[in-house]
């Protein structure tokens, strides 16, 4: 399984998509209020905005390129053809127009292009973001990451499962982007400055991120439970199968991230509000930044596990 190039393409694509969507969520729901509260006394916005724009644009390009690579690998696999045959024998067209995966990929390509168009005013340094631009950007970002649900195990069920499973997976992916995807921009804000105004921005940002994170964790728990219900054939399968053991590792990492987030929320963030000493504040900032980066690594590991889960069988494939 490890030699399957699709795993690595999936890792890159999941990471890039979650980063792009996460940064849009972060800007709209977290930092705008923090920058507004800090007023003109802080130069944090001016410092971090170009970094955010750079991450978003690079993430979007990587999303599209890795999405194209994913499409070609799946088309090859579907048709048992070479890359040359995929292009020359109309296989790519058949996959794009006549399979559920292909139609999902066409939709996601359009969503990525529209998000790119939205990024022009969204990351413009010369204008204040209008409500409409923010609504459109958040909607497109959520749709871009959420529609990954139709490229995996969530589709194919019947009855209620055909509706509930993809819907749960959609929300799971959006919630993942709203947590893991926000960690990198959070670390950027926490590293932005040491003056009082920067600390105020860091405090507001951390509190808002933490509150948003609780909603994300709750959504991940509920939707993760639904996904587990549909994809795992009982507690025994969690222990006895590769798929189950990988899922357990993912759940363990998830709770590790929750534990770190709890420390951030209950121990470190309150220190930013206490005017004890500059040292205490700076120490809390350093620890928050370090924890955010640790969570980024743990989140990336979870994405790696998800990439493997997508190509790992659940049971016997040849019946009878």
């Amino acid at each position, binding site marked *: 399984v490890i030699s399957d190039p699709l795993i690595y393409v999936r890792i890159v694509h999941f990471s890039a998509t979650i980063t792009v969507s996460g940064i849009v969520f972060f800007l709209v729901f977290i930092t705008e209020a923090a920058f507004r509260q800090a007023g003109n006394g802080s130069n944090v916005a001016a410092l971090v905005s170009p970094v955010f724009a750079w991450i978003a644009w690079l993430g979007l390009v990587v999303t599209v390129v890795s999405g194209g690579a994913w499409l070609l690998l799946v088309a090859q696999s579907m048709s048992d053809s070479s890359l040359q045959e995929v292009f020359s024998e109309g296989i790519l067209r058949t996959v794009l127009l006549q399979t559920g995966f292909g139609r999902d990929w066409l939709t996601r390509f359009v969503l990525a292009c529209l998000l790119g168009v939205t990024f022009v005013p969204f990351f413009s340094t010369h204008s204040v973001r209008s409500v409409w631009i923010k609504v459109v950007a958040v909607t497109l970002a959520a749709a871009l990451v959420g529609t990954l649900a139709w490229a995996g195990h969530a589709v194919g069920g019947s009855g209620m499962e055909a509706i509930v499973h993809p819907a749960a997976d959609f929300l799971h992916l959006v919630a993942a982007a709203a947590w893991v995807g926000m960690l990198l921009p959070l670390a950027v804000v926490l590293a932005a400055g040491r003056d009082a105004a920067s600390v105020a921005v860091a405090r507001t940002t951390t509190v808002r991120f933490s509150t948003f994170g609780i909603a994300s964790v709750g959504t991940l728990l509920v939707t993760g439970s639904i996904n587990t219900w549909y994809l795992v054939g*009982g507690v025994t*399968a969690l222990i006895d199968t590769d798929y189950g053991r990988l899922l357990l590792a993912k759940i363990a990492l998830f709770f590790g991230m929750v534990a770190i987030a709890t420390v951030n929320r209950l121990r470190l963030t309150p220190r930013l509000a206490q005017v004890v000493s500059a040292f205490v504040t700076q120490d809390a900032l350093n620890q928050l930044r370090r924890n955010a980066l640790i969570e980024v690594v743990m989140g990336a590991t979870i994405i790696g596990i998800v990439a493997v889960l997508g190509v790992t069988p659940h049971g016997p494939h040849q019946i009878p």
Partner: protein
Amino acid sequence: MRTRIFVLCLLLLGLGGGGAHAHAMLSSASPPVGGSVGAAPRQVTLSFTQGLEPSFSSVQVTDSKGARVDLGKPQISGSTMSVGLKSLGPGTYRVNWYVLSVDTHKTQGSFSFHVGGQ
């Protein structure tokens, strides 16, 4: 907090009782897998645990000498695939199926059925 995490773990683990069927697997067949039918069937119908991609799914039916006895392109609707058959005489026939499920995973399999009683 520890108690809450423990309860949530139990929730996640305890809910793992759904169906493990993320790939298209054969759930039923007519004529039945390994079965015998008295009269020659007009078609073979296969039902799978997942929806199929018609463009990349196929089935072939061959007689004991390996000659095709199906009428070619199968009819696929949702998770069911059927293919018409030529007029079959008594004997054993083999069904080879190859399907792509809507979650892009391939599965394949084969089975025999007998025409003309035991």
